[in-house]
């Protein structure tokens, strides 16, 4: 039983395109962090990560990323994950093109 409050999403890179993707329960992947499923239960987080790691023909480098839940969806806690969710700052490439 978990007692530590958590707020995480499962993220990875798409095997074919390399793009940053997020798990949307139960089995979908989305390009947008705002549409990712926020996980607040440790066991569920591990289950989500295990599911992603089992998808090795679809995704690469899955990990759990800390987020803060906000009204318009989760936001990354760490600036590295913020950059992953937005794209580079020198060109409007990656997710800024969506």
């Amino acid at each position: 039983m978990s007692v530590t409050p958590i707020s995480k999403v499962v993220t990875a890179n798409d095997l074919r395109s390399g793009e940053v993707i997020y798990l949307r329960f139960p089995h979908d992947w989305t390009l947008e962090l705002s549409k990712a499923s926020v996980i607040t239960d440790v066991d569920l987080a591990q289950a989500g990560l295990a599911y992603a790691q089992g998808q090795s023909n679809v995704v690469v480098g899955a990990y759990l990323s800390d987020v803060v839940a906000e009204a318009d969806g989760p936001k990354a806690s760490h600036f590295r994950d913020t950059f992953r969710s937005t794209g580079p700052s020198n060109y409007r490439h990656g997710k800024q093109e969506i």
Partner: protein
Amino acid sequence: MYQYSNFDHEFVAQRVAQFRAQVARRLDGSLSEEEFKPLRLMNGLYLQLHAYMLRVAIPYGTLNSRQMDQLAMIVERWDKGYGHFTTRQNIQFNWPKLEDVPDILQALADVEMHAIQTSGNTIRNVTADHFAGAAADEIADPRPVAELIRQWSTDHPEFQFLPRKFKIAVTGSPHDRAVTQAHDIGLRMTEQNGSRGFEVIVGGGLGRTPMIGKTLSPFVPLEDLLPYLEAVVSTYNLLGRRDNKYKARIKITTHEHGIDEIKQRVDAQFAKIKPMFSGADLQLLKDIERHFEPPKLKPAAPAGAAQTVAQTPAFRAWHDTNITAHKVPGYAIVSVSLKKPGATPGDATAAQMRALAQIARNFGHDALRISHEQNVILPYVHLADLPQVYQALRQADLATANIGLISDIIACPGMDYCALATARSIPVAQQIATHFEALTLEHDIGPLKLKISGCINACGHHHVGHIGILGLEKAGVESYQITLGGDAGAEAEIGTRAGPGFGADEIVPAIERLILGYLHLRADETESFLEAYRRLGLAPFKALLYPQEKKAA
């Protein structure tokens, strides 16, 4: 320049076919990521922050116009219309899709290029002085030797699993433009009793433990060079640490065992393997040298051509900063800046690549170079053609007159792209360059090497910048440490950390205080930042960076 032999073509074609099959097996699930990763890395394919990144070697920085045109085609067809030139004379594509990479490698092979050994614990792309073959101050063109080393090290069976990556740089000039003292092996051409050879420097490197290389041998005759290099690398291969990746580079091996023991071991190994070199290497070098014969140059500039220099103020400013003396009278070396203030250092669009290729065809004897300072060089331009070259560069937005000035910043991709980065580099470079452009102080400041890395691995060479900036994470935000007094030249030096880091919004004001303070501290207008630093030491510059501490004291 070197033209592939049938063997080279066949070898590269085989590697493309192998990788095509490996990608297919990865995509159909036959290979796991664990199995595939070392295979993709052998072909220069990384997975970065937002996408895959393909790193392509530009051996000793040399390109022709056909190759540059092909790079333009590749970035338009399979990437986002631009490429990034790096501090190791490579080009990186930031957005390729995995399934397109075999086609990209084939397109590269079509113009005699590849991505082999641009990653992994192997001997990486051999780098060289970007003015090689053209510099007025060189003994001889070092590129035939660089090509010999490339051929020897490519797929060398003994050196595919070294303790760590291994970087070699070569210069033919006493004025070191190849940062040879910050490489695993640095080679400096010298002459002794009329015969040519190399000073062999070993154990230099930046990264988390920066070290200036030490001279292993002051003179290795040309005929002994390849067996000597093989002796060095095989000594390291056995002696280098494999228990800790942070202690695995030859700089640590040299530090832990001492240069004398390394020398003893290398000499013993050399004595053992030298008889195995039958002279085929020297025959090969002779064949290679024929590929590097200088182009047929035009007669010296007609009288009065120099007066074309005095056309417009903009042309004169560009001429003052971007032109270097050539070994051949009547010719100039043109440095094309990829550092327009506000642009990403080292990036060129497809249109710019095509313009550079066209200029090289029309005015540059088809020769292009990529510098470790992330600029493009036209090594053979007739003085009479300079105004036309300038106009053509201007049309391609490539006529920035800032070579060697504060906005000619080296910057690694940082956390905008790199999975290893701890902070961004590109926005810091953009802000510093645009800030000093707005202050119109750049030419008054004079020669200044500012180098930015987005992590301790130091791809942006910050340790050897006159001003170095290192981006780190501190308490969950980006923080930037400043080092001062580094030098990448012939007497290379590691800079000294000035003090605590600055936040992302504090770094540009800190650099401004430093530079404005230097303008007051310098003895006169001819004393460069580095000279002033060397004369005065860290203290007055530190006081500029941390004025609060001075007040508190």
